[in-house]
């Protein structure tokens, strides 16, 4: 088998495994904790319709990342999946607003969402959107982060586990260098 053939077989095999994982029960049916969902709805004052939910463990995260070419960081703005041991993404659709109008600017208070010992490290607001970054420390490292992004038409909840301190560092650097735009750009890079 030629080198090209091996690459094709490898990518194809990884794709099949990853798709199999994604199709497995629970993988696509993932949703954010009820309290978080309910609190977002309560604070936004509108019902949310879950659009999609994906939860990936270490293996499936790296398989998917490998397929989409993000196993190694492609740039300073990309999430380095090599640091990540698990990731879940839930997307909710917000109710449509009358033509020509925008949703009121969100201002979620994460302290009411039952995150307990989580620390809200970043709150980015503006342009009718809000992005929150909450992180939780283990004994030695920042090992878990939740990114909440409230946009005009959807709400995205991303939960990342692993060496999250590097992602946090990138977020802080993005905020320091480019303000809201930079931080939001990096936060959204965590969406696979």
């Amino acid at each position, binding site marked *: 088998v030629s080198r090209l053939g091996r690459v094709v077989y490898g990518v194809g095999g990884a794709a099949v495994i990853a798709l199999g994982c994604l199709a497995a029960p629970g993988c696509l049916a993932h949703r954010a904790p009820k309290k978080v969902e309910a609190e977002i709805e309560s604070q936004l004052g509108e019902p949310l319709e879950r659009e999609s939910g994906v939860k990936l463990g270490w293996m499936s995260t790296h398989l998917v990342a490998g397929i989409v070419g993000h196993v190694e960081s492609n740039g300073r703005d990309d999430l380095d999946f090599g640091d990540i041991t698990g990731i879940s993404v839930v997307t909710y659709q917000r109710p449509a607003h009358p033509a020509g109008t925008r949703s009121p600017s969100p201002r979620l208070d994460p302290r009411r969402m039952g995150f307990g010992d989580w620390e809200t490290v970043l709150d980015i607001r*503006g342009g009718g959107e809000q992005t929150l970054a909450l992180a939780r420390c283990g004994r030695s490292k920042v090992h878990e982060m939740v990114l909440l992004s409230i946009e005009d038409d959807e709400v995205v909840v991303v939960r990342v586990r692993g060496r999250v301190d*590097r992602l946090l560092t990138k977020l802080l650097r993005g905020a*320091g260098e480019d303000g*809201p735009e930079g931080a939001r750009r990096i936060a959204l890079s965590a969406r696979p």
Partner: protein
Amino acid sequence: MDTREPRDVKRMNTRTDRRMNMRPNMKLSTKLSTKSVWTSVLAALLSLGPIGASAALGADSAARRLPGFVDGSGFGELAGDEHEIVEVSLGPSMLGALARGAAKDPEAESVLSGLKSVTAYILQLDGDAPRIEQAAKLIRETAERLEHGDWERIARVREAKEHLEIFVLSADQKVQGLVVLILDRDSGEVVFANLAGTIDLARIGEISDTIHIPGLNELKKKGGTGDEGESSADDAAPSGSKPSVGEKPKAGAKPDSGERAGEEEIS
């Protein structure tokens, strides 16, 4: 005739420039680099603790009890729905974890482990003159309160369009708090930053790769560990020493004559 300086970062107002690590419309950065400005902002956030009443984003009660903590939440209230704002809040546990994560860089680890709180508010009030005036007033009031407290100003740049203040709180030959206040009227950028804990001004710039704070890099230069630059903050007080207020800036700290009508003071 264009009298602006060739390196005037104010001109670098495009997104491309931003990605090149240039803050938009920051004329100050000819003297105080972008990073130094951010550092200053973070420092300012910390110093608002005794001033403001409302809680900062994630500042826990332990952080609030630190002498160098300043509540800057008043700056967070300046932004309207149409403005962009970034609030940063790192408490002792998060900073400790980041310090351990930066173990490959002993300097950064050492500096981070001394910090107990980092808070910052970075606002873009583009073109909103009334709010920019409110921000200017808040910065003036904050600076006055700090000055009347135990805080000492180590740097000030006041020009027609830009205003920067850096304060430190020192005790027992140690800097316990740092506040940076920045207003750029042209870009509408307002920064408040506050660091609390044990701060080594000579090495504070070492954490700029981990926590990018306006002004950090300039403080790094100031401590003599960085490369030489044209920033006037290079003349600021060294780590551990109690900075004196009102000392005359050293040569080169003054703005180019005829280009800036404001004042600069570097202690």
